[in-house]
């Protein structure tokens, strides 16, 4: 009797364990299988200053610099009808060029199904070109001689960058944080946000977006910001030394920085509001333009 009871107990105990194991396998197999089929991890040996290009329609692209002569790429897709083509030049030996391109196997694929996400670790000094039509791009801790990032609707964030940076997004916001070298950032309806740049040359332009600049103007720097109808806010420390040329046609000019006003020769009659002056010794050059937006220059 006791044996039969014990057997029943063992039998009852075995079933839940078995079911649990099956359940766990079922739960885990999904993502595991998905991981195997959707994510790819590759490493390429490269020459010292390779050229890397990424062409993508949707998804996130993250690029970080590192000190290895390698490109480590991890990319994943949602749909089995999307693949990532990789072209390495030359095919053997350290790569001078690597091209990543998201390819739709089904031309009728739409929306989120087109998504491909990339995470790249690339050597410092890489020439980088990224086009992500409707996806966001993020570049961190990178030094590049010539870096181009373009998007249509995606936002772009670049932080701790050194080199020449060209960024353009038709409708997405652009954030440039702690950049040095030369920076150009353009959008039509997106906002531009610059934080603590130490660039020698900075250009920023947006048509209906807003511009926010937070930081100092390094000696010898050349900064030119332009927006059409959005507002422009400049927040700089009291120690910033710059020569200012600010002009708006229909908007307002609000300045809190003490300025030595420069004498201006006669200019054609215009309804523009303008301010030409020098703060401290005028070591940097700052050029601000707006058509109908408000330009505000304040102490941080």
């Amino acid at each position, binding site marked *: 009797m006791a044996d039969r009871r014990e057997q029943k107990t063992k039998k009852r105990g075995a079933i839940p364990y078995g079911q649990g194991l099956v359940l766990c396998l079922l739960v885990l197999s999904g993502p595991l299988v998905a991981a195997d089929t959707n994510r790819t991890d590759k490493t390429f040996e490269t020459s010292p200053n390779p050229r890397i290009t990424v062409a993508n329609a949707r998804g996130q692209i993250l690029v970080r610099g590192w000190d290895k002569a390698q490109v480590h790429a991890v990319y994943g897709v949602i749909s089995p009808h999307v693949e990532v083509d990789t072209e390495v030049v030359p095919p053997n030996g350290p790569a001078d060029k690597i091209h990543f391109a998201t390819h*739709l196997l089904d*031309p*009728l*694929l*739409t*929306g989120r199904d087109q998504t491909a996400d990339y995470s790249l670790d690339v050597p410092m000094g890489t020439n980088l070109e990224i086009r992500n*039509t*409707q996806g966001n791009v993020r570049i961190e801790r990178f030094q590049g001689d010539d870096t181009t990032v373009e998007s*249509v*609707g995606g936002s772009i964030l670049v932080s701790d960058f050194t080199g020449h940076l060209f960024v353009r997004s*038709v*409708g997405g916001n652009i954030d440039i944080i702690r950049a040095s070298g030369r920076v150009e950032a353009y959008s*039509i*309806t997106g906002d531009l946000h610059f934080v603590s740049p130490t660039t020698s040359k900075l250009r920023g*332009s947006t*048509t*209906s977006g807003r511009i926010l600049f937070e930081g100092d103007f390094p000696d010898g720097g*050349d900064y*030119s910001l*332009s927006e*059409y*109808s959005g507002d422009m806010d400049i927040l700089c420390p009291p120690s910033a030394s710059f*020569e200012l*040329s600010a*002009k*708006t*046609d229909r908007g307002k000019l609000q300045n809190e920085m003490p300025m030595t006003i*420069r004498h*201006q*020769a*006669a*200019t*054609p*009659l*215009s*309804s*523009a509001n303008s301010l*030409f002056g020098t703060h401290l010794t005028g070591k940097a*050059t700052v*050029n601000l*333009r707006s*058509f*109908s937006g408000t330009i505000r220059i304040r102490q941080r």
Partner: protein
Amino acid sequence: MNEIGQGRTAGCYRFELELQAYMEGEDAPFVPAHARGCVFCRVILEDLEALRAAALALPLEEPSPSVWSYVHAQLQAAGAFAEKVSFWDGFRQLGLLRRPIPVAAFACMVVLGCLLTAPQDYPELDMTSQVSALPARSAVRSMAFLGEGAALEQVVRELEVTFRARESSLAPDLKATYENSLISLDASIRECSDSLQREPENSLAHDYLLAAYSQKAEVLSSALEFDEGR
């Protein structure tokens, strides 16, 4: 069928009247229907469609900096900055472009007069802006090219025609992004044009107008690169 000209019918004339609307993407079913039955008109339609396709296949190139000087000179010569003349009326008076030599000579005299009499100090000289606001210097630089005319406005118009014909193939969110940017740029073009009508010497409006056209051309070119599935 009424025969009006040599081999031309009333349908052919209606075809010509509606052809522009059809090429701009508007609903004009008579155009393709007539072309199917009329060899002469079919050839015209096929030529225009081939031109449009060839234009799309052309490599996209950034215009040289002198393009903006051409536009400035063209606008200036067309009286776009004159008082009481609307910008579009002045632009349409490009009959001047058919007589470039006398116009250039007259403009050179005007420029020489400006150089001799205008003040020497231009604060904008210190500007690092890409588009110069100095009418005298840009006029001198561009007079040599007067007559060639960038026709930037025409380029933008043609790009927009092609974009409208193909925009239905864009993904909805992509199309919305482009539409919003074009709305923003068109608003700036209108406002700047209005400003220049009231204040022909408004250099800021002039610079923004050129920039808006340039950006609109870039946006349209970018949009034409994308089709569903590309």
